[in-house]
């Protein structure tokens, strides 16, 4: 694995170039250009606030500012998770010519797709900061957790992206499975709602490795409190295992890519 990572490092310029290409190409010939990177999270946040407002009316509770902020804070990373998995899933099959014609470490494709989505995430986060300032959400020392959370999240999707991209190269079914899972995943991930709303049963939802990460985001930013470290540790371990497993899975299948695509 170290050998492979060293080779990946040698090809780092290619990694950035492919990511830049993905970013540039995505918004080429579109009138709104980079504004699309903002619009998607805005739509999700809008939907989330609407849903949350619905919950509040149904349960007869007052909806306070920090709840709205929590939805917004969780929606942006969620948009990143979904888009990077969806985007990287097709990253190999969309580059057939390169996969079959030229040698280089092919994990660059899914990883660059994740990096390109991370760029969108950065743009959306910048907008989010403005929203949070408008909502007059304060700050705390727990904000220092944020880079760590982003790293964990990236590691997790990087692992998943390598698995789904290699999988869909051999069986196009994987693409449809991923689409279906991503469509319904929002119901099983605490983005629009809070796990605490489910009391004791909430812990089952936390088994979804994305849940503790999103929850930590909202704890750190919206509620100014320390995230649940034991659940966060679970996510970190899960992300590490996924990354290592995804990488070895990818490397194992890589030699067969050119003749199977």
């Amino acid at each position: 694995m170290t050998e492979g990572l060293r080779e990946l490092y040698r090809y780092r310029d290619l990694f950035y170039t492919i990511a830049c290409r993905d970013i540039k190409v995505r918004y080429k010939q579109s009138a709104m250009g980079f504004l699309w990177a903002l619009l998607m999270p805005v739509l999700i946040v809008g939907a989330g606030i609407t849903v949350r407002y619905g919950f509040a009316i149904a349960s007869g509770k007052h909806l306070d500012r920090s709840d709205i902020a929590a939805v917004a804070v969780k929606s942006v990373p969620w948009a990143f998770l979904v888009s990077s998995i969806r985007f990287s899933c097709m990253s190999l099959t969309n580059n057939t010519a390169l996969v079959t014609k030229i040698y280089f470490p092919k994990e660059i494709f899914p990883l660059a797709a994740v990096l390109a989505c991370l760029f969108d995430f950065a743009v959306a986060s910048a907008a989010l900061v403005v929203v949070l300032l408008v909502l007059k959400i304060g700050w705390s020392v727990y904000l220092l957790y944020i880079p760590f959370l982003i790293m964990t999240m990236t590691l997790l999707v990087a692992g998943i992206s390598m698995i789904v991209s290699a999988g869909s190269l051999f069986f196009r079914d994987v693409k449809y499975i991923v689409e279906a899972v991503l469509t319904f995943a929002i119901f099983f991930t605490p983005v629009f709602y809070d796990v605490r709303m489910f009391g004791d049963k909430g812990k089952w939802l936390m088994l979804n490795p994305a849940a503790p990460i999103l929850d930590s985001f909202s704890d750190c930013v919206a509620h100014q409190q320390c995230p649940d470290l034991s659940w966060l540790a679970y996510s970190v371990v899960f992300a590490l295992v996924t990354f290592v497993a995804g990488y070895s899975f990818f490397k194992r299948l890589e030699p067969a890519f050119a003749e199977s695509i």
Partner: protein
Amino acid sequence: MSDVALRMEHVYKMFRKGELFNSLRDLVPALSGRMFSRQDLNAGDRREFWALQDLSFEVKQGEAFGIIGHNGAGKSTALKILSRIMKPTKGKILVNGRLCALIEVTAGFHQDLTGRENIFLHGTILGMNKREIRSKLDQIIAFSGLEEFIDTPVKRYSSGMFARLGFSVAAHVNPDVMIVDEVLSVGDYVFQQKCVQRMKEVIRGGAAVIFVSHNLKNIAEFCQSCLLLERGRVVRVGSAQDVISTYMKRASSEHAVDDEMPVRVSKVTVRNRHGKSLHFQSGERAWVDVELRANSRCDKLSITIYLLNGEFENVFDTSTERLGHGNFTLEKGDVYHCTFELDLNLANGIFHPSVLVYRYDTQTLFDKWEPAATIHVNSETDVRGIANCFPKVVRQELQLPGELNGGRRIMVEAAAGVALEINRKD
């Protein structure tokens, strides 16, 4: 041993013929079918296809090595294994240093990006880093000759421009081992000459070049040694000249004999005035003997003889019908002989005389032998292209602006040479 740039040791590659399972829906019935019936299992084995068998060779630094063979001989598979895109089923490969494969020079391009952006993209794909590309950017653009269009998205390029840009990037990689697959047929003639020049520089710079081409002329020009592949096996390795002549001899022997055909071309011989030969001087007279055998009565037959060049483009063709020798009828069992006389006013290069026999009025093709032979034409003067017009310079004149009226520098001399003499007015 350190001067070995590349080595292949007993490499085998097996493919399975037929459709691979592309979705789970196909896989499940196929697997269960395999479990329940032995027959299917055997059928699976029969679909095995060995694209390469026991391929071994070695290329030293600064050496150009050619691989030739017919379509489907395994050349491209060999290249893909060399460039590590495919893994051999068996065997070992050793590559010393950075390898760059010019298999598909435009593979890395993205339609929506500009020429400049694509240079960076394709350059990094080929293994350069950004700093390296930035330092060579001007060279690359100048080489491609696309200065004007470099900031236009490449989807607006013509296919020729596209390929030129691709080759320009690839030509500036400076690898230790370079693999070239037919890319020299890119662009117009002037650009091709530029490419040939650049390849020679790369070789002179100490890189090893593996060169795969149908163009035997290019192989002969570039490569010291060469390998001939036939159906995945090595037929011959050795000096380029020897291997090319082996290939030329074998090319003519490969003609399927089919007794079902009403009439077939049974023999084609090319000779000069001394006898059978495959090497000709430009302008020399050649005779092509064609023998036909009829298996049943055939009416209104005509024979077409044509020449293909090294790239398998038709450069000349005629037929007995068109030469005013009418058409002829053969009875069952007849053997027919016909000799064509040709003046080979051709430029340097490799040509393939080919023959086909057909029924004139219905244009029914009975048999085609392509190439029936491979000949090498050698020209004493340096003429390029296809035809040889036997050029001479017979007059050279220089007119200076100040001496428009009457005063001329005649730099000429005519007749048979290029003797230059300057007649000054003073």
